[in-house]
């Protein structure tokens, strides 16, 4: 698919192409990937565009290779990314733990499909835990951004590169098969963030300076204690500065519907219908899944009578909402195991049953 990179004109584009185009505009210098549905268009686009621009594109021999190549590239300070989906992101977990420990600005696009195991290629939100809790070893956090429209796929891809470099932390753009495969009008504004100076740590060749080592190995327990405290100070800073969410009609709400990603589109419609029926309902959509808007949910739990979490999995984010609310009011779950989000009228019916 041929695309003009930068345009103020609206173009109709698939989420996957929009993410890839945004990555190019964000200044991504290196892409490493291995194809998997439903995100293969990202690699397809990159295979042409990156060569055209004289940047690096590598079709890796496996997902393990792809993410480790991304680590290598990121360690030189350049903007580097990989993209994959569910069962293949599973293969990358070890490397993500290393990237978190090495404090490297790795950007990973994860377009969720059905699981566990090989699962299927339909949309899903079953990798909320995978992205926010991780499958790698040790104490670490990834920054996780969850778009709900194709335009947000663009805006949050920009943001993923910015936050990854600002905090030297691996960052995941968590989309799903629906967003990846659907088309919607979208505009591409120039990359809106400042460039982060990485000259103090990047491995750029030790000319006229001492050599540098990036490693995640701390043989002495005391050193590791200090290191982890520092790492978690950074995470607290990220929580303080970067927590982002969208909230609608919560001021007088008795019930707040909490959802993320593509599911929020249907939830917003359901909330409108419920309002028309006289139910005082509001919505809250976490845009950053880590950092999670726990504080805001805690505040809302003082005035709200009930939270209903809507997600396409067996109930994952609902646990984080319950932790934030801490038993103050009930937190219910409306879910669909896999596929496109539950229809607005289905959500309406289930919410009515719960209140």
């Amino acid at each position, binding site marked *: 698919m*041929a695309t003009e990179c930068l345009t103020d004109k*609206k*173009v*109709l584009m698939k989420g996957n192409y929009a993410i890839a185009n945004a990555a190019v505009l964000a200044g991504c210098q290196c892409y490493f990937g291995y194809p998997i*549905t*439903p995100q293969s268009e990202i690699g397809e686009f990159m295979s042409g565009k990156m060569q055209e621009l004289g940047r690096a594109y590598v079709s890796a021999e496996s997902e393990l290779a792809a993410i480790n190549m991304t680590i290598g590239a990121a360690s030189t300070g350049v903007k580097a990314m990989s993209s994959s989906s569910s069962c293949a992101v599973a293969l990358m977990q070890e490397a993500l733990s290393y990237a978190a420990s090495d404090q490297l600005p790795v950007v990973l696009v994860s377009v969720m499909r059905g699981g566990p195991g090989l699962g*299927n*290629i*339909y949309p899903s939100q079953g990798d909320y835990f995978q992205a926010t809790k991780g499958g790698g070893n040790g104490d670490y956090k990834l920054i996780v951004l969850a778009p709900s429209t194709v335009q947000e796929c663009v805006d949050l891809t920009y943001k993923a590169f910015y936050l990854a470099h600002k905090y030297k932390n691996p960052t995941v753009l968590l989309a799903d098969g*629906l967003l990846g*495969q*659907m*088309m*919607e*009008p979208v505009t591409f504004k120039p990359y809106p963030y400042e460039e982060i100076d990485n000259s103090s740590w990047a491995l750029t060749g030790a000319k006229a300076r001492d050599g540098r080592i990036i490693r995640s190995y701390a043989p002495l327990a005391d050193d590791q204690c200090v290191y982890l405290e520092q790492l978690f100070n950074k995470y607290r800073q990220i929580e303080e500065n970067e927590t982002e969410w969208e909230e609608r009609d919560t001021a007088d709400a008795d019930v707040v519907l909490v959802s993320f990603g*593509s599911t929020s*589109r*249907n939830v*917003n*419609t359901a909330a409108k219908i419920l309002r028309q029926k006289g139910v005082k309902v509001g919505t809250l959509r976490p845009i950053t899944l880590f950092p999670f808007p726990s504080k805001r949910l805690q505040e809302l739990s003082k005035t709200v009578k009930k939270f209903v979490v809507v997600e396409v999995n067996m109930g994952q984010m609902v646990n984080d909402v319950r932790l934030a609310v801490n038993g103050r009011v009930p937190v219910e779950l409306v879910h669909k195991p896999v596929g*496109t*989000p539950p*229809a*607005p009228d289905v959500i309406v019916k289930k919410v009515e049953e719960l209140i």
Partner: protein
Amino acid sequence: MEKDFILAGFGGQGVLLAGEVLANGFMIDNKNVTWYPSYGAEMRGGTVNCSVVMADEDVSAVLKSSADFIIVLNQASFDKFVSMVKKGGTIIVNTSLAIEKRIRDDINYVFYPITKMAEEKLQSIKMANILSLGILSKVSGLISLESLEKALENVIPIHRRNLIPKNIEALKLGYEYDLLKV
């Protein structure tokens, strides 16, 4: 206002492309619009379809269980989607590849030999998809031929621009389907 469309046919009949042209047309008209393809464990010779939603406000849901207008270019698609036409909605049926059968009395039918028409008037059965959009334009009154023509410019890649005039001809032919004898 929100309107739902489904375009369905054999793989290769160009229904995904036709849906993309339709969605681009709505975008040109400054509507909110989404396009979503059927994808999954598809097989050769099976049906393929896409859903297009056009709305003045935010699109309420990308994928729905019914539609206002459904174009079916083959029998399998008719069988699969006729039950999904909303009451009072319209199904446009390609009678070159599907039989003329009214199995519900609460919907409108447009029966037309779209493939035959494309072959006879445009010398190519490949034009059936775009021809069907011309019919949709006339029948629905929701999208103008001008917007669809502009949409073709967005969708057809640069190295195939020579095909635009023929596609515009197909749109016009479809728009006049009820005036022509086939």
